[in-house]
């Protein structure tokens, strides 16, 4: 068996912040190399925790997470695979320019000095923000900051890019443009992306496969292949139909069905 089908392997994952309230229990998922998967779940179900664990920021209580056949480490310079991470907030250093922000993570990833500038230029170009190269992040708009954050995540040429509702604080028009461009970017680069969202439409538009989680603590409730060829249109009626089916499908599980109240703890 090649590891490209099991590029990211999460097996029997348990995560808890305080030691007794579980945020993620017995979660299993596999992601193939170059795949774009979405993780869909209700607010507060533990989606973000899952990404935190995959990134190595939060250690699992039990279970394993492997990327490209190597376990995810948590320390600095422990030889674990590089990871790109884009969150709701941009998490840029406001006292560093756009280019410096990217340079800092590139150096941490061990990129040689003479290549740093080339990479910065390439990825800023890709995200259409070259002209903000030497601007401070606080002078940019929300959408522009998020572009910088994505450029930073891609620039380390990571094994996987984790995205945690990166467009949810943007206005709808900006968000649509960004989704469109993200889809194109992925098709060009075939970067492995795990995209967390609570928006079913967003998941359907972007992902090849969707992991639907249970209401917290998170487990995988179902996995859905999106049978719509690319390039997709956000308003595609097939997506609308699929959206309605998924809503129907998760209604009970997410606690809005006839048996609401007793199903969450099953």
């Amino acid at each position, binding site marked *: 068996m090649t590891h490209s089908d099991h590029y990211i392997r999460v097996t029997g994952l348990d995560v808890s912040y305080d030691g007794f309230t579980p945020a993620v229990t017995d979660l299993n998922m596999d992601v193939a190399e170059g795949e774009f998967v979405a993780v869909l779940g209700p607010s507060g179900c533990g989606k973000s925790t899952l990404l935190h664990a995959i990134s190595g920021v939060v250690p699992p209580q039990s279970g394993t997470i492997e990327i490209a056949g190597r376990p995810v480490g*948590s320390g*600095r310079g422990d030889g674990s695979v590089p*990871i790109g*991470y884009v969150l709701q907030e941009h998490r840029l250093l*406001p006292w*560093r320019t756009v280019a410096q922000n990217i340079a800092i993570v590139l150096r*941490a990833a061990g990129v040689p000095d003479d290549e740093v500038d080339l990479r910065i230029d390439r990825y800023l170009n890709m995200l259409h923000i070259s002209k903000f190269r030497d601007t401070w992040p606080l002078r940019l708009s929300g959408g522009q900051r998020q572009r910088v954050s994505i450029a930073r995540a891609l620039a*380390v040429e990571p094994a996987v890019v984790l995205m945690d509702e990166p467009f949810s604080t943007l206005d709808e028009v900006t968000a649509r443009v960004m989704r469109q461009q993200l889809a194109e970017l992925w098709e060009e680069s075939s970067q492995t992306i795990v995209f967390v969202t609570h928006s079913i439409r967003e998941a359907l538009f972007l992902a090849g496969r969707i992991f639907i989680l249970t209401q917290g603590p998170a487990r995988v409730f179902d996995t859905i292949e999106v049978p719509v060829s690319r390039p997709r249109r956000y308003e595609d009626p097939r997506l609308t139909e699929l959206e309605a089916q998924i809503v129907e499908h998760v209604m009970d599980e997410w606690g809005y069905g006839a048996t609401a109240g007793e199903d969450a703890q099953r």
Partner: protein
Amino acid sequence: MTTEQVAPLRQITGGRLQRVQAFAVASLLALAVWQLATLISGGWVPSLWRIMTALGEDATTANIYAEMWITLRRIFITFAAATAIGIGLGVAMGLNRRVMAFFRPIVVMGLAVPDVVYIIVAILVLGTEESSGLIAMVLALIPFVINIVVGGVGARDPGLDEMSAVYRLRRVRYLVDVVGWQVSPALIVATRTCFAFAWKLIVLVEALSQPRGIGAQIYYSFRLLRPDHMIARALLFIVILRLVEAIIFAPVEKKFLGWMQ
């Protein structure tokens, strides 16, 4: 003491004209009250005229500048030592729970001990050397610096800590680029507070234990019942301190706080 907010709060708003106006009103009012106090106290509070004369006399003696230089040097030594130690310890406390657990009670007690006690104990243990007074001052100043720095480190954005962990930033880069810059406003406030307190304290140290320096001069004038000279010398030195602040602190602040616009 929450001097943390001194810097941002005391930004005087309004144009130059209004500032001059306010300065004039404040000065005139203060002078009037002073003159009134002179009348009431039956001459114990020196009149403005006497202070002006004393100021003129003191400003033209070369000796006073030698004394000022001695005091200024002491302020700088203690200030540098206290900020360096205080910032180092404060950052360590803010980042590490164990360091915090150990030093917290010491800092709380250190803040509570009266300055006089530091000075007297230092004199007892180390004698009346110049160094004993300086050590007492450094010890008295450190807790203030630590307090402000710890507050700044504690208020840092946990999101940026996570970012540093995700991208595996090295320790040094994390301390400089992520923590350092977030804490820099607090550091500036800490150094300013430390400088201001160093001046307040040196007067006491020199009055109690030193034969030379501006504090000793102030106390000397006091004992000779020459309040006019006492005030004149303090005023002269305050002017010098303001100059130092304007020359050294203002440009540094500008440089470090540029990114906040």
